[in-house]
């Protein structure tokens, strides 16, 4: 008995010492990436990506990987402009802006050596639309004529107007002109898929490194689920000379504090950080801010009698000091909103929308807010403002923002609201079913054009959670949608936004940005404001 116990104790202490020694060993030999002949970049993802199926992928983390290992007709350059990728040139578009003809480049192959053909696009798009695929982003492919009908089970694949006229030519016709369509073709949902391979893999398609074909700058060589993904340079890539990195190791880590520590200890080269770490890094060459096409606003449900009153809605909006809110609550490069469409959103005419539309949002003005509130209350025949519930996500940002706004309303208007922080799923449900009074809502762009933010307030939109109903506004959105002249379309949207600013169905409080730490020796990493967060095609280590 004593002997065996001594033996166990011995084994255990050996184990312990061995672990400690092993720790010291590899801990001290860790070095940075610079100076190595092999170009290796170390990235992170916040979560394990879903299957890398371009039809079904819907999370940013999946797009991050897809953008490196797959490619569509176009890629976005550092200004967000589409440049030909698998396409040989920019598309030929008919005058009504609806029919696109695209020629494919020569020498484009899948990682199995077979050529990428126009049929791979036709197949992938129709597969996405097929209701059986249950693709979240099918609605984008449904912009193609016949797509909506097929997606909703009322039509068939044959009626969808996308066709590979030969191996090298793809043509498709849109239902309405979509001025940003060329750029949108860089979005993963429009990437090609090889039918034979997809069908052979069945349910397992794109769930592992060897269950996917690649045509992008990199190949996924190893997918260690939950832990890391390893990308290596794709030697069959048509533009391989521009690809400098030999390997990209993508580790999965979700805690921002951990990411900052990993960055500081040279274990990773890029880290997304949040408010707590920003001050420590601001002003250093590592600190990079990337504005997002992402807005946060307070929805005021018009089913609630006092919120039906325009003056009261305005009072609530004017009483929020957005500058302080953005600085205190977010503190990550986020900007105080000046309208309903975030900075950086490009109009159909390829001009920055915010610059064209100007500052439409009334400035923070507690005195005027107070007057408006008093007038509004008189109009609805109330002597005091009822205690309303203010609902939002129970995330750190969500709670802090709600508490800040609650304080502002108390201080500037003397009114009380009750903050109710609930899980994200429940918040979505409350919003969609209009079961709320005030609600903090977030929206990220699906595509880079103001429509993605403005059609939310169309009376028929399922995201019109505040039940805004303005026929003039609806008209303008409708006209913009059907308009093929980009300048006119933008003009309609500018006018539409002015209506929002006047009637204030929602009160914008933040235009989000992401703060990153980027190793100064890592060059040419492109950061994007929506969709995929980064593109490493031409990145290199100096």
């Amino acid at each position, binding site marked *: 008995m004593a002997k065996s116990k001594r033996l166990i104790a011995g084994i255990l202490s050996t184990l312990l010492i061995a672990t400690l020694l092993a720790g010291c060993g590899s801990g001290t030999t860790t070095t940075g990436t610079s100076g190595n002949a092999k170009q290796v970049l170390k990235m992170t993802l916040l979560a394990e990506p879903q299957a890398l199926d371009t039809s079904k992928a819907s999370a940013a983390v999946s797009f991050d990987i897809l953008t490196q290992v797959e490619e569509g007709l176009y890629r976005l350059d550092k200004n967000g402009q589409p440049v030909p990728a698998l396409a040989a040139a920019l598309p030929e578009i008919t005058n009504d802006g609806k029919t696109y003809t695209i020629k494919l480049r020569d020498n484009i192959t899948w990682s199995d050596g077979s050529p990428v053909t126009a049929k791979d696009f036709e197949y992938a798009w129709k597969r996405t639309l097929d209701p059986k695929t*249950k693709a979240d982003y099918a609605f984008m492919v449904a912009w193609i004529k016949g797509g909506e009908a097929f997606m*909703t089970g009322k039509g068939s694949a044959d009626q969808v107007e996308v066709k590979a006229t030969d191996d090298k030519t793809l043509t498709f016709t849109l239902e309405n002109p979509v001025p940003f369509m060329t750029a949108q073709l860089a979005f993963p949902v429009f990437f090609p898929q090889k039918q034979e391979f997809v069908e052979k893999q069945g349910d397992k398609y794109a769930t592992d490194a060897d269950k996917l074909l690649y045509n992008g700058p990199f190949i996924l060589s190893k997918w260690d689920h939950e832990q890391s993904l390893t990308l290596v340079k794709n030697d069959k890539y048509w533009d391989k000379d521009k690809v400098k990195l030999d390997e990209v190791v993508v580790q999965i880590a979700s805690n921002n504090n951990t990411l900052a520590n990993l960055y500081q*200890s040279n274990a990773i080269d890029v880290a997304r950080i949040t408010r707590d770490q920003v001050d420590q890094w601001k002003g250093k060459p590592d600190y990079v801010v990337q504005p997002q096409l992402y807005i946060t606003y307070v929805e005021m449900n018009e089913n609630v009698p006092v919120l039906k009153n325009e003056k009261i809605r305005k009072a609530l909006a004017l009483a929020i000091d957005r500058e302080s809110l953005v600085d205190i609550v977010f503190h990550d490069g986020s900007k105080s909103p000046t309208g309903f469409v975030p900075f950086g959103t490009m109009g159909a005419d390829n001009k920055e929308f915010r610059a064209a539309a100007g500052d439409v949002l009334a400035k923070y003005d507690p005195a005027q807010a107070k007057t408006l509130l008093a007038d509004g209350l008189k109009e609805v025949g109330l002597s005091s403002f009822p205690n309303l519930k203010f609902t939002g996500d129970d995330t750190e940002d969500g709670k802090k923002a709600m508490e800040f706004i609650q304080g502002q309303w108390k201080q500037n208007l003397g009114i009380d609201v009750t903050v109710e922080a609930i899980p994200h799923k429940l918040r979505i449900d409350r919003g969609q079913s209009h079961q709320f009074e005030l609600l903090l809502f977030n929206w990220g762009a699906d595509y880079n054009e103001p429509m993605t933010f403005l059609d939310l307030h169309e009376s028929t939109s399922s995201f019109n959670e505040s039940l805004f109903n303005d026929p003039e506004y609806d008209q303008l959105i409708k006209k913009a949608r059907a308009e093929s002249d980009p300048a006119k379309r933008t003009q309609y949207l500018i006018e539409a936004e002015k209506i929002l600013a006047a009637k204030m169905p929602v009160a914008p409080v933040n235009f989000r940005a992401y703060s990153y730490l980027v190793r100064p020796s890592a060059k040419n990493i492109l950061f994007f404001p929506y969709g995929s967060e980064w593109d490493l095609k031409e990145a290199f280590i100096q």
Partner: protein
Amino acid sequence: MGRFILRRFIYMVITFWMIVTVTFVLMHNLPGDPFANSEKLTTQQRALLEKQYGLDQPLSVQYKNYLINVLQGDLGVSFAYPTTKVTDVIKRSFPASAELGIESIVFSVVIGLLLGITAALKHNKSWDYTAMFIAIVGISIPSFVLGPILQYFIGVKWGILPAALWDGPANRVLPALTLSFMTIALTARMMRTSMLDVIHSDYIKTARSKGLSQTSVIIKHTLRNAILPVITVLGPIAVNVITGTLVVEQIFAVPGLGKYFVQAVYSNDYTLIMGLTIFYSLLLMIVIFLTDIAYGFIDPRIRLAKGRK
């Protein structure tokens, strides 16, 4: 003994059934639906999804099907990861959690025992106070505070060990240490008390008066008897470690199962919530079951007392 084990086993099955049922009912009363990006789905897509997951059936049918599937070891497919079976999520994430757990138990036992023994042998001397101070600190500092501190100083500032991630053996030390800190403290205190009891007992005095050497008294007589009560805390230690991985895994980016516990609830991932609850409760029940049996072996009084009821 056989009857004792059988009775324990039946309790276990009943508990298990109750956990499955209660979780099932609670989960299906969660507001909101389980589909990722559900706002963007068309009615047709949604209907097909509901059919695929059997959500179009009445709740009683769903419950029946679920029980049948669980008994066959099929926990369904995750909603957030529609191509991944829940059993696969567990299969690929649990090894890291389990490894971390085992390593932290090893740390707890080895360090805890050493501290406890030292404290007892140097009773009321500075060694004792130091050891017990460490123990008190261990009990008072939660892992979400200790983790980042260790990470920052040992991982970043001094660069002795990797700050996080799960690449090699060195990456295991900090998370295992963080996770075991509390149980190190528990074990140390337990061992100290138990040693002190034994040291002052008559048979140790007898051993000494026989003229045995100090080492021989400690190793052959004191430790052997003192360690028995400590074995009984191993069960609770294992439980603490299993449930404690959640925070530690986040801090050190360990590719384990803990994170899904929170994530799944947030995304209403019905199958994953159920799967994890079943898996973890089974694990806990087995640990408790084994501990109970171990008690029964070590101390027949427990078995007899319960047997007579």
